[in-house]
Structures are given as structure tokens and as C-alpha cells.
């Protein structure tokens, strides 16, 4: 296609990095200059970059890679620098572009101790590079590199600006994710060496699109399962899925507010994005065999996270556990391997990013005012800081999946998709998951409203009743929150904005045998794993 603006994605990816370098070059002490510059960079990226994407992206061809740029990178292993986005990546990139400047704005007057805006902002920008890079990468090695790039800044952010247990939390986060990544890269490499087309000659490529075309054809079953397992570990830990989630509460609780927001809003999505971009498209047959287990872990995560929330005494930790629960819904949607489910997953990612972001913002502001997040000590927020209280209430409502707000569209379609999973998946199993997940929504309402009641309702406890430095939201907080709040409503009322974008891409990413009507299934001469035999009954 002529003039597909191949430069834009690279610019979006590396501009923050350049910004970070410049910030480091700016001499210390001139604080406003640092902040202003960081805001300038991220804001410009949002307005111009985001605007450019929105205007130039061809929504009618949302299933194709656009803005692609492909050049030789590490020729020795035939790993190429390929970037490009389709309808699945676009929303997540826009989310990233949005969240970062908001974080910069928010931290304008809430810099965590030790007070060092220079380093802090530089880290944030480096993070942005890593996150955008992960979403645009179309080469496995490139993806892996960006996936890891994200790790270090977050590690430092937690280790330097974190709470009292920051050393432990940061190290745990780092090692845990690194462990997953190790298995992930193993999986990638084995793909590289094992992939061969039906003619029997090896592909020897890391190109995600090429591998997606290949769809794991004539790869031995065991190999497929193992490779998928490796990816599952890598992505599942990042999501995080149920047994591997324990790094999340610590990281969230210890991280500075902005760190938590970025972590919740974008970083967790890297894992789910990996599933829908790499694991499932490339290895659909292994996916079909793994899906029931993924779904199982997902629903366990839903219930388990919710119960974990009910046991919390610390607000931030509660929100962290709620992330486990919500990402469970996302993973359930993915596990169904249906367009409905994965669309729901994409929507769920964005919605969870916005909603949990807000929740962490508010939690941070509460901490800044009350110097504690112990739920039993809080209360009466609506009396002392009414607007913040209402925002908290709004966020909780959105988080418990209230229809008309963004959260619902990540939750309900996922549950719905579980009723009729993709071909080859057992309906009985997934319908059980559906019911369990539906129960999870009740628990979600339970803990969120409980949180709201304990923190926002009632009279403020006397230790804070007269506290002078408990004031309502500041203008920086408003500016940082307003876009997210508006988006939550807009996406909730007009879900098609997102579904329309992601739907074609999702449909294309899935193996036709997964989503075909049972009638057409025979025509496709699918592998047995897609349950052609059971198609009749």
C-alpha cells in the first residue's frame, strides 16, 4: 500500500526514550523544567501521536497490520525489526499513550520520597517506550526485548520509591517475571527451530505474522503443548494468573501511586496481549488443549481474588487483589477462544486499565491525605472530600461491572462467551466456569461496596475528623482523572468504539476452525482437536 506512514510507530516507540535521555541531561534542581519537559513529551505523543493513529488508522481494514515497518535487525538469527498495529493493538497503545501523561500530571505535586523528579520521570518515559514497543512489536525477539525493557524501570520505581517492604516486593516482582520470561524465550526459540511449513522446509523466522500464517502446521502435538506451556508461563505470570499472582499484591502495595497505576493499567496487559497476539494465533491446536486449564485457573482466580479482597485490611492491597479477580475475567474470555470472548478480553484490558488506574489514583491521594490506607481507620471520605468520595464511588461501581460503564463490557461478554466456547472445547466445563464467574460478580460487588462503605460512608473517625490537610481533590488530580472518568462512561455507553476496532483483528487472529459454525466445520477439514467428530453431538 502506498504511504503507510511506516515511521509513526518507531517514533512513538522511541520518542519517550529520547525524552528520558534529555531529561537526564537537564541539570538537577530545575524541577519544574523536568516535569514540564516530561509532560511535553508524553502529552505531545498523546495528542499528535494518538491523534495521528486515530486519523490515519484505516478502521475498515482493522484486521490488517498497518503502519508496518520491516527491516533487517539481527540478521544472524533472522530476527527482524518489524512493527505494526491492528485493531487489537491500537486500543492498548492508545491506553498507554493516555495513561503516561496522566501519571506525569498526577505526580506533579505528589512526588514520592525520595524526592527525585528527574530520575522518576525518566523512568516513566523509559517505561512508555517499553510498553508501546511491546504492543507494536511484530517480531518475537523484538517483543521479548521490549517485554524485558519494561521490567527494569518498574523494578527501580518500586525499589527506590516504594513502601517499607520495597526491597522484597521489587526483587520478587523482578525475579518472578524474569523467570517467566526465561521460559517464554525458550518457547520462542523452539518455535524458531521447529517451525517448518507443510513442505517440510524450516521457516527459521521470528516474524509473528508469518508464524500466524503457519498456525503451527505439522508441529508435533507434544512440542506444541510444551511451547505453548512456555509462553503460558511467561504471559501467565505477567497477567498474573491464579497460582502465579503472589507478586502482584506486594508490588502494588509497595509501589508508589504512579507505579501502581502504570502497573495495573498497562503492564498487566502485556501478558494478556501476548496470549491473544502470539500464543493463541500461532498455536491454535495447543491452545485448544490448554484452554480448559486456562479457564479453570481463570475462574479460580476470579473467586480467589474476590475472597482475597474480602480478607484485606489495606485499601491498596484490596485493589491489587481485585486486579487478580478482574484479570481472571479477561483470561476466561481468552480461554473461550471465541471472538466474543477475546473481544471481551480486549475490552476488559482497556476497561480494567482505566478503572483500576482510577482506583489506585484515589487510593494514592487518600494515602497522601490520611497517611494510612487501613480500611478500618478510614471513613467519612464523602464528608471530608466529597468529590473524591464520589469519584471513588463511581470507580467502584465501574469496577464491579455496572452496565453503562466500561467494566461491564469486559465482564458480561466474557461470561456469555463461556456458555458456548470454541469448537473442540467442552461446553459442560465452560458452562460451569460461566456460573462460577457469574457468582464472582456478586463477590466483586460485595468487596467493592464494602470498601466503599468503610472508606466513603459514615462519619470520619475522630483521629482524622479535625485533620487540616485532608482536602478535596486538587486541580492536578482533576486533570489527571477526568479523562479516565469520561472514557469509562463513553466506552460504557458506546462499546462499539472498541468492539468495532478489535473485532476484525480478533476474528482474523483466530484459527477458522475455532469459530466456524458447526455446519461449515466439515468443509474446513480441521484437525481432530477442533472436535470435528463431536460436531454432530
Amino acid at each position: 500500500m502506498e504511504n503507510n506512514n511506516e515511521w509513526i510507530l518507531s517514533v512513538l516507540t522511541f520518542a519517550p526514550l529520547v525524552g528520558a535521555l534529555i531529561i537526564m541531561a537537564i541539570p538537577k534542581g530545575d524541577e519544574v523544567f523536568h516535569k514540564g519537559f516530561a509532560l511535553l513529551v508524553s502529552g505531545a505523543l498523546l495528542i499528535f501521536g494518538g491523534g495521528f493513529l486515530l486519523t490515519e488508522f484505516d478502521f475498515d481494514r482493522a484486521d490488517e497490520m498497518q503502519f508496518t515497518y520491516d527491516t533487517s535487525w539481527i540478521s544472524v538469527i533472522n530476527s527482524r525489526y518489524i512493527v505494526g498495529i491492528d485493531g487489537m493493538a491500537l486500543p492498548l497503545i492508545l491506553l498507554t499513550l493516555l495513561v503516561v501523561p496522566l501519571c506525569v500530571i498526577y505526580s506533579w505535586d505528589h512526588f514520592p520520597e525520595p524526592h527525585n523528579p528527574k530520575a522518576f520521570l525518566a523512568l516513566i518515559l523509559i517505561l512508555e517506550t517499553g510498553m508501546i514497543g511491546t504492543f507494536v512489536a511484530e517480531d518475537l525477539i523484538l517483543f521479548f526485548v521490549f517485554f524485558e525493557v519494561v521490567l527494569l524501570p518498574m523494578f527501580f520505581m518500586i525499589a527506590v520509591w516504594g513502601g517499607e517492604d520495597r526491597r522484597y516486593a521489587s526483587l520478587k516482582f523482578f525475579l518472578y517475571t524474569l523467570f517467566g520470561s526465561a521460559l517464554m524465550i525458550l518457547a520462542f526459540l523452539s518455535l524458531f527451530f521447529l517451525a517448518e511449513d507443510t513442505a517440510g522446509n524450516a521457516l527459521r523466522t521470528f516474524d509473528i505474522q508469518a508464524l500466524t500464517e503457519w498456525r503451527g502446521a505439522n508441529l508435533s502435538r507434544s512440542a506444541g503443548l510444551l511451547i505453548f506451556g512456555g509462553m503460558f508461563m511467561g504471559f501467565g505470570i505477567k497477567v498474573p494468573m491464579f497460582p502465579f499472582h503472589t507478586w502482584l499484591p506486594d508490588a502494588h502495595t509497595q509501589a508508589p501511586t504512579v507505579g501502581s497505576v502504570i502497573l495495573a493499567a498497562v503492564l498487566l496487559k502485556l501478558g494478556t496481549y501476548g496470549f491473544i497476539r502470539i500464543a493463541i494465533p500461532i498455536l491454535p491446536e495447543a491452545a485448544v488443549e490448554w484452554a480448559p486449564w486456562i479457564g479453570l485457573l481463570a475462574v479460580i482466580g476470579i473467586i480467589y481474588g474476590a475472597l482475597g479482597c474480602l480478607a484485606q485490611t489495606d485499601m491498596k492491597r484490596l485493589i491489587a487483589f481485585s486486579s487478580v479477580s478482574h484479570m481472571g475475567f479477561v483470561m476466561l474470555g481468552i480461554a473461550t477462544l471465541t471472538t466474543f470472548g477475546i473481544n471481551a478480553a480486549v475490552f476488559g484490558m482497556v476497561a480494567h486499565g482505566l478503572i483500576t488506574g482510577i482506583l489506585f489514583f484515589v487510593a494514592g491521594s487518600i494515602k497522601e491525605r490520611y497517611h494510612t490506607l487501613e480500611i478500618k481507620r478510614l471513613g467519612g471520605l464523602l464528608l471530608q472530600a466529597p468529590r473524591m468520595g464520589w469519584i471513588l464511588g463511581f470507580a467502584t461501581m465501574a469496577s464491579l461491572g455496572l452496565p453503562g460503564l466500561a467494566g461491564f463490557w469486559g465482564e458480561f461478554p466474557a461470561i456469555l462467551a463461556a456458555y458456548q466456547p470454541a469448537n473442540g472445547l467442552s461446553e459442560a466445563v465452560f458452562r460451569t466456569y460461566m456460573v462460577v464467574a457469574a457468582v464472582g460478580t456478586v463477590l466483586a460487588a460485595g468487596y467493592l461496596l464494602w470498601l466503599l462503605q468503610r472508606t466513603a460512608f459514615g462519619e470520619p473517625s475522630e483521629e482524622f475528623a479535625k485533620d487540616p490537610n485532608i482536602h478535596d481533590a486538587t486541580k492536578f488530580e482533576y486533570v489527571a482523572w477526568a479523562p479516565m472518568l469520561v472514557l469509562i462512561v463513553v466506552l460504557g455507553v458506546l462499546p462499539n468504539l472498541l468492539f468495532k476496532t478489535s473485532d476484525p483483528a480478533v476474528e482474523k487472529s483466530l484459527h477458522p476452525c475455532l469459530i466456524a459454525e458447526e455446519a461449515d466445520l466439515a468443509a474446513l477439514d480441521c484437525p481432530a482437536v477442533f472436535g470435528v467428530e463431536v460436531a454432530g453431538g
Partner: protein
Amino acid sequence: MSLSSLLLFAAETGPALPGYTFGGPWILRNAWLLPFIPAMSFLVILFFGKRLPYKGAEIGIASVAAVLALAIISNFAWFDHRDHYEAAEAEDAIGALLNEAESGAALQVLVVDGTAEEIRLATEEPAAGELFAAAEGGDDGHSSEIHPSTAVRAEATWFQSGGKEFKVGTLIDGQAVMMLFVVSFISLLVHVYSTDYVAGDRRYTHYYAFLSLFTASMLLLVISASTIQFITAWELVGVCSFALIGHWWEEKPNSDAALKAFLTNRVGDIGLLVGMIILFFAAGQTFDIVKINTMALNGEIGHNTLLVASLCLMGAVMSKSGQFVLHTWLPDAMAGPTPVSALIHAATMVVAGVYMIARLYGVFYEGLSIKDSSVNPLALVGMITLVFAGLLAFVQDDIKKVLAYSTVSQLGYMVMALGVGAWTAALFHLFTHAFFKAGLFLGAGSVAHSVHSFDMKKDMGGMRKFMPTTYKTFVICTLALVGIFPFAGFWSKDEILVGTGGWGLFGGTGGNGSYTLMLIGGILGASLTGAYMTRVIYLTFFGEFRHVAHDDHGAHDSHDAHDHLPHESGPRITIPLILLSGFALLAGLVNLPPGFITGNLESWQERFLHFYEPVSAAYFPSVAHGTPSYSLAVFSSAIGIAGVAMAYFYYFVLVDRKAKQLGESLTELPNGPTTKVGFLRAGHTLLVEKYYLDHLYTDFIAAGTKGPIARAVYWVNQNVLDATIDAVGRTSVKTGTAVYTHFDQKVVDGAVNVTGLVSSETGGELRKLQTGKIQQYAAYLFAGATVLAGVLIFVI
């Protein structure tokens, strides 16, 4: 609603199904305006309300008034459409449509200027004849008037997935326009009433904002054409009720009640979600209510699927419409301001469940095989509810609680009516009940407003002297509730009893089956209603005024300096009361049974049925209508009056006399027999404890989940999962440090500390080697030298 969506719909579902059209009067095609207006007013009030002269109340009232006007207009528009819609026109129209389908422009014109209203294939239902017959079955001699009802639809794409597009839209037919009128009318009265009732409240503006939001959501629910849209509205009204119940959230009981309401409804919503999902896939991946109903009736959906789906949906009904075992939130919800109770928890929101059954009646009708049976879950639940709730109402001292239980019981009537197939009767009762129950609540509020309390035994009594208007209206509404001829309740309740078709033995009434059990329950309920309402009347308006000046009875309503003698409320409170009592008196007349009056007034009978039941629409089952029988009417009224009489004797005679004996200084009523007779006392406590349901929910289920279970899970998280991770970390560190242990005692300790304190001092241990103590360095130096020398000498 646009042409494109119309074509898409045609493409999706083949030829348009009978029973609805995309044409019709403008106002009906654009019914989205009704929820839109209050939604806008919600935003305006929320953001600018505080700055407005009347703190946002005027916006709310204006918007709701506009909605009421629109609702009335659309009712009349519907009457006209209902009667004069001709299938033939539709045939031409659809023909034209199909001919010009290619050239969209022409169609654009057509649709835009609304001349291509009737778009409908002339696929005449084979069963149409029977439908007519069935419809006539009820009312002899009016077959000429029976004219198939045709709903008016409009829709737009909401979202897409897997290439499929899913619609949001409006489905306007009789039950919708009826509900539109009820909601907007009650809402307007409540808005006006509240200007006085919650005047000066701390969150006056928020109050009105949420009233507007609630009105919007409720209207959205009423007009929704797709199940997912229905779910949305359903949840939204739940949230509004949450916010309004917890309006005075400073006190924990109120927020507790709000939470309880929301969570109980969430439990029911599991059923809603699952049921709707089942229907979604059963009907070939569509949320379209009409399509689901039609397929259910055509037998395109398996009976078992329908059964499961309707049972799931019943769960939602039981929570939202407070049916037995999930009703417990409704009495607690009285913690909210009284007008809210009148609007949400009596007239509109709580009937959403009933409304849903009526909407998806095809599903329930087939799924529960209502026709020609004698019992089914729906009817049973309804009957149990109406009896048990009626019993509970006896032991309440809080006037609002009595009314709440009475509401539950009346909802039981409606559900039972739907269960026995008396669709019209159910909606008719919904219609009348909305007025007189709202009137009762507002009346109770008016009383409480002047005595700053809801406790009938402590703070009321003899109010008729102080507030005559409230007294009169309250009594009228009570009579309507009890079902005394000719008040509204009489007609609707009688129609339900007729609909049960259980009155077979004396000149049968051809219902959809013979639900004798339900008939008995209904009649019993009537007498209970009479009894407890008499008790309320006595305790509130008769006897001595027992109020002593203590205003701490949750009387947040009090805003002004309260004087000690109660007084009649102002016009903004009394006028709504008068209006409502007027409706309570007359609303029944809109559905006079056939043959009740004759002569040129004859055309006035069964107007409600005629206009509001979607007769012979393909998405609606052909329900039969029982023929009313005087014997049944007389008998049921007699039973009801008997209940009144007994209560009258007990309270107005016995208790009153005893009270007189006890003298003037009486602040407590004398104890009834329940404290003396053991067996009665047992029953009494059982009722006071609300059948121990609350204990079950709160102390076992909720507390259990929140307490032991949650804590256990968290314990596992910390001590099993997390511990394993830490153990892995520790062992790795240990192996790493084990190397040093051969060198230096210090490092051994260090390693032990490292392994011990991974969490606190990760990695900090190696620094301990680097103490900066010269002599230690010297020691290491020489040690190293020694080792090296040793190596050189012995090894090499």
C-alpha cells in the same frame, strides 16, 4: 431505527416477523426521548444543580413533567395506532421496500418522512385464527373489535462481535406505554412531594440527581427491546436504589441496608445473566426480545432450555421484585427517604421483575408450561410470597415496614397472576397498585414528617385529628389495597382471582388452567391484607396521640424546628396524596369486566385489556381470559372484609377499651394475646425474626464468606503460595551463600541472616563483608596469601 439498521435487521432475521413494525407514529418510534430527557437532567443537576436557585429540583421536575407529557401523548398515539394499524398497508410498504431495496435513497426519504411506517411481511400467522378465537374466548360479543396489536420498534447498532451486530432499541407496545405513564406520573408526584419532604437536606441536589437518573433508567428498562439493554437498565435502577436507600449514609444502618439491597439483587442477577445468556444462544445469538419470544412460542427453542432459562430469570425476579426468600432487602430498604420508598420500592422498580416476566412472557409461558396446568414455580412462589409477607406485616411497628411487607405481598399477587397466565390481570394490578401503594407510602411519609418518627406504637395514634387530609387519602388507598368495591384494588385483585381459573366448582371461569391452590392463597391474602391494614389505620390515626418528644427515631426527615403537636403537611405533600387517592378510587374503572355495565357505556369495558395486551402478536402467547363470576367477587370481598372486621374488633374495641382503662398517660399500647398464649408467642417470635432468613443470610452466608472463608483463602495465599515462592528464593540464596561458609564464620552468619531475612535485607548481606575495617582486610589478605601459598606448595 435508521434505514441501514432496518435493512440489517431484515438481512439478519429474514422477513420481518409479525407483531411489530418499524413504522408507526413518530412519538412511538422515537421513544428513546423519554429516558434521554431525565438522563440529561441528571447530568445537569449533578454538575450545575448546586448553583441553581432551587438546587436542581426545578430541572428534575421540569424534565419529569415533560416526560409525563410525552408519556400521555404516546399513550394516545398508541391507542390510535393499536386500533387503526392495517396489515395491508404494511404489505404494500414492505413490497415497496423490497422493490426499492437497491436504491437506498428513495427508502431514505420514505423512512425519514415517516410515510413508510408499516413495514411488515404479510406472512399471516396460521395460528392467527385460533389467536382471535382465544382472544374472543374471554369477552363474548367483542370479537369485532379485536384487532391484532402491533408493537412499534426502532433500533440502532450497539456493538459488534464476530461480525455480528447487536442492537439497542425501543419496543413500544401496550405494556410499555402503560408503564411509561405509571413511571412518569408517580415520579413527577414524588419529585413535587420531595421538594417539601427533604427540603433543606444536606444532599438535596444529589437526591434530585439520583431521582432523575432513576427515572431515566426505569424508562429505559420499560422501552428496552433487547435483553442486554434490559440488563443494563435493570442494573442501573439497582444502583439508583442503592444510592437512594443509602441517602443518609452517615448512619451505618442505612448504608448497611443499601449494601444489602444491592447484594441481594446481585445474587438474583446471577440468574438474570445466566438466563439471558441461555436465551441469547438458544435464539441463535440474538438479544432481540421479540425474536426470543417468537421463537419460544414457535417451538424453535427446546422446552428444557426454556425451562432452565425461565427458572434462572425467576431468580432475578425473586430478588428484584422481592419474592419470598429473597425479599428480605425490601423492608430494610425503607431506610431510604419515604418518597424514594414510594417511587422505587413500591410503584416502579420493584415491579421490574413482574415487568420482565410480562416482557418475556413467551419464554415463561412455554418454559413453565403455564397453560392447562394446575401449579408451576412462578405461581407457587407468588402465592407463598403473598401469604408469608402478609403474615409478616402484622408484627411490624414501623409503618413503612408494614407497607413494605404489604408491597411484597402485592408483588406476590402479580407474580402469581403471571404464573397462572392472567397476564392482563397482573399488569392491571401493577397499574392500580402503583397508585394506591404510592399513596400509602406518601401518606405514611406525611405522618412521619410531622411526628418525626415511623414508629406507630410509640409516636403515633390519633393522627386523624391533626392531619385530616392525610387521614382521608390514607384510608381511601387502604380500601383500594384491601380490595373493597369499587376501589381500584378490587377490580385488579378480582381479575387475578378470576384468572386463576380455580373457581371451577361454582360456574367455572375458563382460565389457562385450574390453579385452585393459587385461588385459595389469593383469597387468604386478601383477608390478611384487610387485617393488617386495619391495624395500621388504628395504630396511626385512632386512639391517643402517643408521641413523646424524642426525635431520634431515624427521623432524618426532620429539618425544621419541630413543634410538639403534629400538624397537617403543606400542599406540596397533600396534593400528590389527593391525586393518588383519586386514582386509587377510579383507576379500576379502566378495565371493567365485560357485562358489568351495559348500554352505550359498554364500550368502556376492558379498555385496559384491549389496548395494552398484545393480542395476536406473534411474540405473545394466546392467553385465555377467565370470565368473571359474581359469586367469586362476592366471596373474596367477604373474606377480605372478614379480615377487616376481625382486626377492627380486636383493635377498635378490645385494645381501645383497654387503652382507655390504662388512662391518658399512655405511651405504650397494651400487650396483645401473643405475649400470653405460648403457641401464639412462638408464632409471633417466628414472625418477628422474619422466619430467621436474615440470620441465615447475614450471620451465616455473608459473615461466613467475609469471615472464615475469605480469611482461610488469604491464609493459603500468604502461607502456601507465597511461602513456596519465598522458600524457592531462600533456597537459592542459601545455595549461593553456601560457598562462603567454608571461608569465614562471619559469612556463615551472614548467609544464615540472608536466608532468614530475605524479606527484610535482601542482598544487603554481602555488604557485611565489606566493613571497611582495615584489619579485617588484612586478615583476608593473609588468609588468601596463605591459601595461595599452600596451593603453590602442596598442589603444584
